[in-house]
């Protein structure tokens, strides 16, 4: 004997439900970005400051040291900007950790978990939203770089390849940060967790050639994920040797995405308390 309840919607197939729920969550997160633009502004400001600082303050001095005597500030801009662009992708991901952790601590996650929603949808919504946000910031920073003298030498295919890699990087780092956000106890610690990620490119080939570093740091610079990514983006935009770096960069992005996804979802399925 079944009393008629209004419970809607015969269960759609798992995959289409997952996509639909993720898009619903994405719309929610885009509204968040509109209502709370401070976060977007903060992820624009940092790479912008680094760009201006390294071009105008350090540029003259570092340029000659890195690229050899006789190089100008303009030559250094062309070396620097691909590094700054990679930093932009990294610093944007921080926002994911904060927004995911906010959901977790404000209790709305428990509402989602007691509803019949595809399990990864809330997290996918955050990650996709953050990736879109970072992509927009990347376009802005690249445009500004061109305005102050960045002169890339890339075909359309190379531009697309570079853009694809950067979006993939943003996606991978967002998933990693979603994992950090889900596993952080407070929003404050969630916002501190990813900070090293935004500085890591500096300890690679983002602003100077690692050959100028002491041997220990040089070794680290060579094997850390941002160096091959940086070298690939630089190679694509400015021409020059990419070698294995392209594949290593893709592998890092895939690895970050998979690990972050697993780590975040595991916490989502376990989390209960405020």
């Amino acid at each position, binding site marked *: 004997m079944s*009393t008629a309840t*209004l*419970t809607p919607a015969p269960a*759609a197939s798992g995959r289409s439900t997952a996509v639909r729920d993720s898009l619903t969550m994405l719309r929610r997160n885009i509204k*968040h970005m509109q209502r709370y633009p401070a976060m977007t502004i903060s992820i624009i400001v940092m790479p912008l400051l680094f760009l201006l600082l390294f071009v105008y303050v350090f540029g003259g001095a570092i340029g000659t040291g890195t690229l050899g005597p006789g190089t100008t500030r303009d030559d250094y801009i062309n070396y620097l900007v691909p590094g700054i662009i990679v930093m932009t992708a990294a610093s944007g991901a921080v926002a994911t950790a904060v927004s995911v952790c906010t959901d977790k601590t404000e209790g709305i996650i428990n509402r989602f978990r007691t*509803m019949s*929603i595809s399990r990864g949808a809330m997290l996918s919504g955050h990650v996709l939203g953050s990736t879109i946000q970072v992509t927009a910031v990347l376009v802005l920073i690249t445009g500004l770089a061109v305005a102050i003298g960045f002169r890339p030498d890339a075909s359309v295919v190379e531009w697309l390849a570079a853009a694809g890699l950067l979006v993939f990087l943003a996606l991978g780092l967002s998933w990693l940060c979603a994992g950090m956000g889900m596993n952080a106890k407070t929003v404050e610690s969630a916002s501190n967790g990813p900070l090293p990620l935004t500085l890591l490119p500096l300890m690679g080939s983002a602003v100077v050639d690692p050959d100028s570093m002491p041997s220990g740091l040089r070794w680290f610079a060579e094997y850390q994920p941002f160096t091959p990514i940086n070298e690939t983006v630089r190679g694509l935009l400015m021409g020059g040797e990419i070698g294995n770096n392209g594949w290593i960069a893709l592998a890092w992005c895939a690895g970050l995405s998979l690990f972050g996804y697993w780590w975040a979802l595991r916490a989502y399925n376990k989390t209960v308390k405020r």
Partner: protein
Amino acid sequence: MSTSTTAPAAITALGLRKSYGDKVVLDGIDLTIPKGSIFALLGPNGAGKTTTVEILSTLIAADSGKAQIAGYDMVEQAERVRKSIGVTGQFSAVDNLLTAEENLMLMADLNHLPKAEGRRRTADLLERFDLTEAAKKTAATFSGGMRRKLDLAMTLVAAPGIIFLDEPTTGLDPRSRRIMWDLIRDLVRQGTTIFLTTQYLEEADQLADNIALLDHGKLIAEGTADELKRLIPGGHVRLQFADAAQLAAAASVFGVATSDEESLTLQIPSDGSTTNLRAILDVLDTTEVHAESLTVHTPDLDDVFLTLTGRPKTDDPAHLPHQPKESAR
């Protein structure tokens, strides 16, 4: 009360247990809640109320025990259970950056309602919960009472047959509390089953068809409010006198009374009926003893709790009149 015992059960639970480390939170809970009734789980902070809700709403797994919600096994068919229930937790679960309307539409979308239907239910709930004026404001600007109403409205978008309300009125002012109570009563009139937890005895008394008292992870009593009140000694009338002479005079007339020389009061057993009260007043009149004041004390659930646990419902050790009789474990 009016709930028929033959109604099919909305929720049944058998032997639910849960521990966190050494701390036993639930120590074997059995429940049967008929469809369309309000069930109140009553107990002090830390009794295990929220844990019970978390288990039955599929948020956490029990260490052992079984439960069926809307006929579905809470572990094997968790997804079906989630489709049948709505949960409004103790801590508000609204999206602060979205407006009231957007919060409700979010729920409609996540429940895969067609857009038009989602909009219809949203408008309907805003109206019913008196939130129409606040529809376009973000939830961050809401007062505690409005937030709680929005929270419940969000739960109702999917029109679930079973609703869990974990301390729905904790922290609300008396007026907001009344409003919540009316909303809850409305729901049951429409056939919804409600599982309510509360630490307010009055709330359980006001709303619930059946009440279970939870203390240290165990159910210590279960029944209707009236059945529970019958578990404790009857009520009394309390007379206050101006001086010891008056008290002594009154005490000598009323045979079965307890007098307290210190507070100058006399307690006379009474069922609180008007006949009984008139009889008492008549006796006072004829003996020309003057009572300063008269209070009628009918047993309430506070007395039940006190009688069953040997301590008041607050867990504050400073208020313990004496230690519980049963051995601690």
